[in-house]
């Protein structure tokens, strides 16, 4: 994929932005002081992927202060010319894809793919189970669409079951039905998580050794929350039925894939307690790189990479190694706030430098 042009009205600090990229402008470096809107710009480029920001903010907060709407448009090349526009006004958004109005947002997913590398990615390695699950759910959904639907359906049943459990005088037969449906999805999800984490762990180790150049092994382990000897749909169902009493007491579902966990190990020790900051940062960068690679491997799409201040914590040797890996992508955007980093990109013949001044993007000559 390749972004050909982007425009925005009232998006964050961009009151009126318009910018085109030429074909050879593939490795785009955005250098500007703090608070000028570098992250905002990446946020804009990311927005079209899932029609939301990668930061935990609502759409309303993306509107330029004092205005009541934003409107954005991207033109990108993915073998063909494509265009997505979004207008957000009165808490609702109008999305148009190649001149056709989109009814369900999910219709747009997969049309424009980007992978963002942000400082929060450390939480993939060190965060709480909830954060890790969310990351891996998205990660595995790229590999396998059935995984995506199974998670969606699982969550749907789970919500119904929780609503049922809230009510003290509920229909026992219905609880059995929900457990039956959950067991069906747990069986699929658990098997896929198990299978995919094995592949991912191997990728993770290979890349960690290559870029990290350490002598230790790195791996990822999946911990299903349901612990039974043999995973079959029937055994899972029986397990859930045995747990009914506790769940009824609690008033919500306590057992299932929404309680699973993942752990990252370096040298067989938990990253949280063992690895250094730079080592953890590298682990998070590698996870995002694998995610981007999976777009290529499973969907034949080269996603846009958006890197927000994330390579700073690596030493120079590993910076160079890491950056050489992302040169293969059709296009990437990276923010920096320091000239010393420029040397790392010297080898690229597709460089383009941008800066942001007063909410406007412009070319810059400091190469």
């Amino acid at each position: 994929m390749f972004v050909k042009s982007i425009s925005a009205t009232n998006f964050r600090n961009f009151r009126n932005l318009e910018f085109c990229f030429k074909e050879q402008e593939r490795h785009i470096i955005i250098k500007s002081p703090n608070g000028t809107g570098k992250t905002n710009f990446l946020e804009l480029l990311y927005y079209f992927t899932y029609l939301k920001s990668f930061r935990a903010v609502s759409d309303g907060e993306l509107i330029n202060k004092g205005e009541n709407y934003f409107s954005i448009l991207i033109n990108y090349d993915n073998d063909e010319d494509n265009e997505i526009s979004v207008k957000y006004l009165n808490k609702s958004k109008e999305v148009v894809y190649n001149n056709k109005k989109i009814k369900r947002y999910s219709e747009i997913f997969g049309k424009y793919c980007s992978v963002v590398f942000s400082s929060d990615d450390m939480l993939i390695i060190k965060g709480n189970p909830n954060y890790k699950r969310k990351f891996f759910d998205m990660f595995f959904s790229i590999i396998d669409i059935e995984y995506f639907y199974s998670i969606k359906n699982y969550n749907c049943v789970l919500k119904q079951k929780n609503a049922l459990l809230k009510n003290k005088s509920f229909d026992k037969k219905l609880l059995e039905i929900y457990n039956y449906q959950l067991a069906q999805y747990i069986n699929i999800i658990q098997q896929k998580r198990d299978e995919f984490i094995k592949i991912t762990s191997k990728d993770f180790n290979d890349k960690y050794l290559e870029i990290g150049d350490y002598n230790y092994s790195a791996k990822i382990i999946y911990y299903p929350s349901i612990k039974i000897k043999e995973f079959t749909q029937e055994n899972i169902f029986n397990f859930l039925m045995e747990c009914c009493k506790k769940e009824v007491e609690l008033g919500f579902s306590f057992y299932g894939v929404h309680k699973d966990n993942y752990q990252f190990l370096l040298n067989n020790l938990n990253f949280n307690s063992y690895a250094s900051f730079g080592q953890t940062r590298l682990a998070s960068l590698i996870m995002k790189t694998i995610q981007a690679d999976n777009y290529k491997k499973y969907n034949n799409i080269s996603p846009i990479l958006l890197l927000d201040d994330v390579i700073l914590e690596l030493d120079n040797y590993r910076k160079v190694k890491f950056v050489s890996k992302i040169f293969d992508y059709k296009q990437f955007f990276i923010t920096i706030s320091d000239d010393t980093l420029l040397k790392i990109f010297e080898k690229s013949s597709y460089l383009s430098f941008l800066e942001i001044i007063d909410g406007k993007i412009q070319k810059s000559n400091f190469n």
Partner: protein
Amino acid sequence: MINDFTRLISALTKLPGIGKKSATRLSYFLLKNKDKSKDIFISIVDFLDKISNCSICGNFSSSDPCEICSSSNRDKKILCVVEEPSDLLAIEETGCYKGQYHILMGNINPLEGKGPDNLRIGELLKRTKDGVFEEILIATNPTIEGESTFLYLQNLLADQNVKISKIATGIPMGGSLEYADKYTLGRAIQSKNYI
């Protein structure tokens, strides 16, 4: 006047698909076209008086039993269970089905406060317990809630000696019978998934 006006607007916004803006526009239209409006209201009241629920299948009808339930040209040995009257209509339009119907009036959905007791499930069991039907075709929507409803009914009907089948093919999960195209739905009905 203002008070009467807002009362009408808030009444109209209770209709599906009518927001405040459309309700205001409609109110002005009604005021400006009093004769036409009164005609419309007479037909609405007429309609409401005439149409009620069929005491057998639950469908809306001007006669009780409804046309389908009282028809002698339809197969009396097969029963199709659907969620809504609109689903019945969609199946009728395929022309592929010539049996009886039973409308549940919704699906099991605790999130929206709807349990089995809120549906016409008791009426269904009463109809089926005498063994008049050889086959029950459950055509709930291919959604999670439709699936739960199907499984629940399947369990309930398990000890009655009747063949239970389900339409499943062709309609993706998350879809709805009402919006499935005629061809897909027709094919789905003909190639019932027997269990």
